[in-house]
């Protein structure tokens, strides 16, 4: 028995070895190095020099740090729920029994397959305050659209709206969750004379709550790291730094200003924020998330 166990453990070790190496090299080492660098004056061209907590102290005083943090929080607070609602709604729609589902699913997923950078350029045109299609459409129903791209009040809302096109991934995961809901539960609800809304509210949502939690956590991690679209659409976070996000400032510090120690300190603060938010989500969800039979 012990021999068998030992054999199994050896096999397991061999099977897991890629990840053990990967974890050590691509995660554990960089994480430790990153902590160390965050207490150093460092750029790749120079050796790290220990400067204590100076990077963190400077960060606390750095108004741009706070600005990018609040921009990022704004984006996450609006884009995350919006994305979740849209993704769940689309998944619910796609879970009905109508013809041509294969087409619809593909259509909704399409934007996730087009390179984000080329989408960003399209959005620059669509949201142009003077001649963009969005304002043309708003004008059609008698609303004078704002200057989405050059008005600091509207540039972030524009980005939030844009993020909706990228819900394909989350939508597919919800859809998978929906297909896992036992049909008998709906049949039982039908017998009780439940309306469609009641069924959604009392059967569907509780049944897919683990998926919602999963997507919520992945969403927090993703939205807090928003980079590509604003980087391409708004160089330097213009206008007036209204679209200057955390990861953009971190990138600038690391690779443009050659302040890599400072960038590492920023990275660690971001990690802690994500950690805390994830803990909170897990704690709050304890009561509401329903884990099947297990």
């Amino acid at each position, binding site marked *: 028995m012990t021999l068998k166990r030992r054999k199994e453990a050896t096999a397991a070790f061999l099977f897991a070895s890629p990840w053990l190496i990967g974890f050590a090299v691509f995660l554990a080492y960089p994480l430790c190095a990153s902590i160390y660098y965050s207490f150093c*004056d460092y*750029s*790749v*061209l*120079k050796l790290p*020099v220990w400067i204590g907590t100076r990077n963190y102290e*400077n960060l606390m005083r750095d*108004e*741009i740090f706070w600005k990018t943090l609040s921009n990022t929080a704004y984006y996450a607070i609006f884009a995350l729920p919006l994305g979740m609602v849209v993704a769940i709604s689309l998944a619910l729609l796609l879970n009905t029994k109508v013809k041509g589902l294969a087409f619809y699913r593909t259509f909704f997923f399409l934007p996730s397959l087009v390179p984000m950078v080329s989408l960003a350029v399209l959005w620059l045109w669509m949201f*142009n*305050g*003077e*001649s963009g299609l969005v304002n043309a459409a708003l004008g059609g129903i008698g609303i004078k659209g704002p*200057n989405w*791209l*050059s*008005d*600091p009040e509207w540039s972030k809302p524009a980005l939030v709206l844009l993020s909706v096109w990228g819900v394909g991934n989350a939508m597919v995961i919800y859809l998978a969750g929906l297909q896992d809901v036992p049909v008998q539960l709906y049949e039982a609800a039908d017998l009780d004379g439940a309306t469609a809304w009641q069924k959604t509210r009392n059967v569907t949502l509780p049944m897919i709550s683990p998926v919602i939690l999963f997507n919520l956590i992945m969403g927090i991690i993703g939205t807090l790291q928003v980079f590509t679209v604003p980087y391409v659409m708004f160089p*330097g976070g*213009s*206008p*007036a*730094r209204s679209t200057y996000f955390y990861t953009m400032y971190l990138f*600038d510090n690391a*690779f*443009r*200003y*050659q302040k890599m120690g400072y960038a590492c300190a920023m990275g660690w603060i971001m990690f802690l924020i994500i950690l805390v938010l994830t803990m909170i989500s897990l704690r709050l969800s304890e009561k509401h998330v329903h884990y099947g039979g297990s």
Partner: protein
Amino acid sequence: MNPRAIGTIGLAAVVVGTALYGERITTPEVKPGPVRITYWEKWTGFEGDAMRAVVDAFNKKQSEVFVELLTVSGIQDKTLLATSGGNPPDVAGLYGPNVAQYADSRAILPLDEFCAEAGLSRDSYIPCYWDIGFYKGHVWALPSTPASTALHYNKKMLREAGYDPDRPPRTFEELDAMAAKMTVREGGRKDGRIVRSGFLPNEPGWWNWSWGSFFGGKLWDGESKITVDTPEYIRAYKWIRSYSEKYGAGDLQNFRSGFGNFSSPQNAFMSEKVAMLIQGVWMYNFISQFAPKLEWGAAPFPYPADRPDLERSTLVDLDVLVIPKGAKHPKEAFKFIRYVQSQEGMELLCLGQRKHSPLATSSAEFYAKHPNPYIKLFTELAKSKNSISPPQLGIWPEYEAELNNAFDEVYLMKKTPEEAVAYVKARMQPILDDYLLKQRLREEAEKR
């Protein structure tokens, strides 16, 4: 063998093949013959063509060095990344304002010995261009193509507004007055949207940081103090704000968001939406390409009426050639740079890019062949004592970002000029202190 095994082996072969192919793409070829050096160039289009012609001429002229030109975008960041990654090109075509940051980071090699050997000195150039590559007592970079800027104006629009088309504004006061008269609102109503403008401080918006210098301000004292909070700078930002006050920040934004791409016939100046703007010597090329019928002229940019000493202020910009640290063939790299500094190489390049030459003298043939009717003006402006170039500061990228942001906030009326300037000062001074301190500690450590 069962089909599954065959399939697996086939897939494995595909993966291995792809990996090897990928390796081949990213490994530079080694060929026998002359020493091959890589040169990173930032320009595409006709400007890139001009550089390629110079490279070809050099490759043909001698047989020891072969230069391979690669077009790289975002070159200032990429070269820094490549140098820190230990994989830099032999020659990089950077922008002039990058020199200080690169030199301080020890990312480029000093060229003093090479220059002495080749007999290149300040006397060989229009001084302002040599100075851009000269930092802390060393030569770090030599010119490729230079530029100076001037007021570009639309003669037809001047005429239509009742002005003499050959008498562009000379002072900021004239500029503002003429701009006001040339600005047209839809239907002539006061609340109509702007359809045409005389002048906008942020068109093309490439040098929003520089207006203070046109009013006589300096960005730092050259030693340790950020001097952006001086009356000259406040005056400049007040002037910027006066446009938002006069025309409405929202209206100006609306108007500007309708402009097309710079390099297109929808360009604001070429589509006659803006009558006057600051532009560089290259503007001629775009006009001749996209709006050949445009009636335009160029003149020295205006100066404040009470500061005649600031007459003929001009922004000077320079593309430079540097040898990154870690370059495999610095000697051969300099051979190529040296060729570009020769009158033959330089005039071939500058004529191709339709700019003026940064060398102290230009041949008569150069001017004869040059298509830009104002080329002598740009050469003369570069020699002006009031040439403006970004300060040689290692923190310039950050400082510039800060100044551009201050421009935005004043232009959008989010901050008063005084607030904006005080903010920049308060933010940049500690960053500069920190930078200078670390720089000094490092230099002392290096000496030891």
